[in-house]
């Protein structure tokens, strides 16, 4: 576990389903079926848990870092899904999340 959120050199994991379109749909189904949307919201846009589609990541945004968060869990309430889901299923969730378009103008919210 890396508290600072920077993946250690040498621990880079490769996503076997990167950019695989069929895996995007499968990952989305798993995201709903495993109740991920119960915390991260519909479309992973953030609810009680953080948004996963704003292009920003607490614990690193590489495929490997996101896999790590899902597999091992994170201290502030993210359950560990390793052992519950197969590694392939977790990779496909990663593929689904990484395929989401980033909203424009994330840093600025303007009222006038």
């Amino acid at each position, binding site marked *: 576990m890396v508290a600072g959120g920077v993946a250690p050199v040498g621990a880079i994991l490769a996503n076997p389903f990167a950019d695989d379109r069929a895996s995007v749909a499968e990952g989305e189904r798993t995201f709903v079926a495993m109740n991920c949307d119960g915390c991260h919201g519909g479309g992973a846009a953030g*609810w009680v848990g953080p948004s996963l589609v704003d292009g*920003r990541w607490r614990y690193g945004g590489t495929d490997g870092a996101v896999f790590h968060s899902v597999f091992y869990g994170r201290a502030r309430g993210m359950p560990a899904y390793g052992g*519950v889901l197969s590694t392939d299923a977790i990779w496909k969730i990663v593929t689904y999340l990484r395929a989401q378009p980033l909203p424009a103008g994330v840093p600025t919210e303007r009222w006038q």
Partner: protein
Amino acid sequence: MPSRSRLVPAVLLMLAPNRAAAQTPARDDGQWTMPGKDYAATRYSALGAITSANVARLRPVWTFSTGVLGGHEGQPLVVNNTMYVVTPYPNVLYAFDLTKDGYPLKWKYRPDVNPSAVGSACCDAVNRGAVFADGKIVYNLLDGHTVAVDAATGAELWKTQIADLGQGETTPMAPLVVKNLVFVGPSGGEFGIHGWLKALDLNTGRVVWTAYNEGPDSEVRATPGTFKPFYDRGTDLGLSSWPGDAWKRAGVPVWGWLSYDPQLDLLYFGTGNASPYNPEQRAGDNKWASSVLARRPADGSLIWAYQFTPHENWDYDANAEMILVDLDVGGRSRKVLVHFDKNGFAYTIDRVTGEVLVAQPFAPVTWAKGVDLATGRPVLDSTKLTGASRGNITGICPSLEGGKSPVSAGSYSPRTGLFYVSTNNLCMDFHAAQVTRIAGTPYIGAATPYKPGPGGHMGAFIAWDARTGRTVWEIRERYPVWSGSVTTAGDVVFYGTLDGWFKAADARTGKPLWKFKVGSGVVGCPITYRGPDGKQYVAVYAGIGGDWFLLSGDVRSDDPADVRAPADFMPDIARHTSQGGIVWIFAL
């Protein structure tokens, strides 16, 4: 948009003095020792130095940053010239010395709380406050523990595990103490828990009894001859009103407020929603979800129960406060409890028997046409029933935030005979879906986007006559109103708004009298007390949060890796407030 007051002409006559005034306590010790001020949960103080005539001169005299950003629900306690403040997770307990300049800390208590609890709290890592009894401050940690701390020294006296985080149980509610027992319950209606109430020994923390809200009579502690619900007959109702073993993952949490009648020796509390939200996975009435239960404190025996929303389809928890008063209803003096339910109806119930005397909507309601007093059941609009096979159901009012949030504890003035409550004016669509329970993860099964209700304002602060079921006056607010209220012998009522105003109004007319911007939205419950100098003070928490289903997350600025767009129905709340916990004290 400025708030405005609207007096409802048809009920002006109700403002005349009434018999309830005879219940005014002869004296007030000036303290605030339990969440609802008294066992009856009136949140009424007989202190009268701050009046409708002078409240315009109220000014802040002290503030304190709690150092915590979560939603600051609940209220401080004031006992023996000491103010006790519990923060949201990580549940720090502060003890301020009110006798010294600047109110320095006597001590602070920093418990060891499991951070994974943050992920099992449905809505935010909140805490609803502590209770004082027998020289102890007793409160719940988010991670399923109750602690007792020496009120004088801050030393931990005992710590008891009461809930199972692994099942999605967390514990933000405020306990109540009756005699030598501490009463506590869990949150987890979004996690498929098996809801309960526990009694702990005040001196040791030992669990004395556990009574479940659903399941066989032996677990519910319902005994034939002792359990006498007004409307229901039969045994094992908490079993037979669920399909198969659905009762074992049924939710029905206890996360709201408790009250107690010493004469009847009955403890009253509301239960939360049934799990999951998709009602097709739990055919039947689902007793005793969304209900009020009356239990005997000594052994937990169930004496009566009433279900506000049988087979609830809309996440209508009934965890809001049960305020205990004596009222003339239909020409008779009745011992009643008054309850403002998430389902939009306010109930006046005989608290001896569980008979519903009055049930009228206090907020826009579309899911039901009324409540049949002969059966106690709501008259449903079948077009508003939800379920995975029914697709998206639109135009349901109230939203699942409730006509009133159970968090926003109302108050009652025996001087006016009126109840003062914060309300939400939100409606929703409800698209249910089949869902599988995975222990410790959300068990919900619905998408429920919100819309402002009729009129466009999203909330109000109202005065309610529980004898007739009518709104006497209302102050409309732009945003949902989520604070509690306190009312006083000075005929002033205090509440706060989500956009960060703390306000005072005339308890008789609803005329706005004073307001002050407190730095963050108010979701806590104000209190009033007498300081060591004899003056009357008013205290409240600022600190928006408590429900990330309602708040889009754009009022948060604490995490650069979590940046969200505003909510479509409330796109500008972040223009007026951001997170941050502050204790405020005001005086003339």
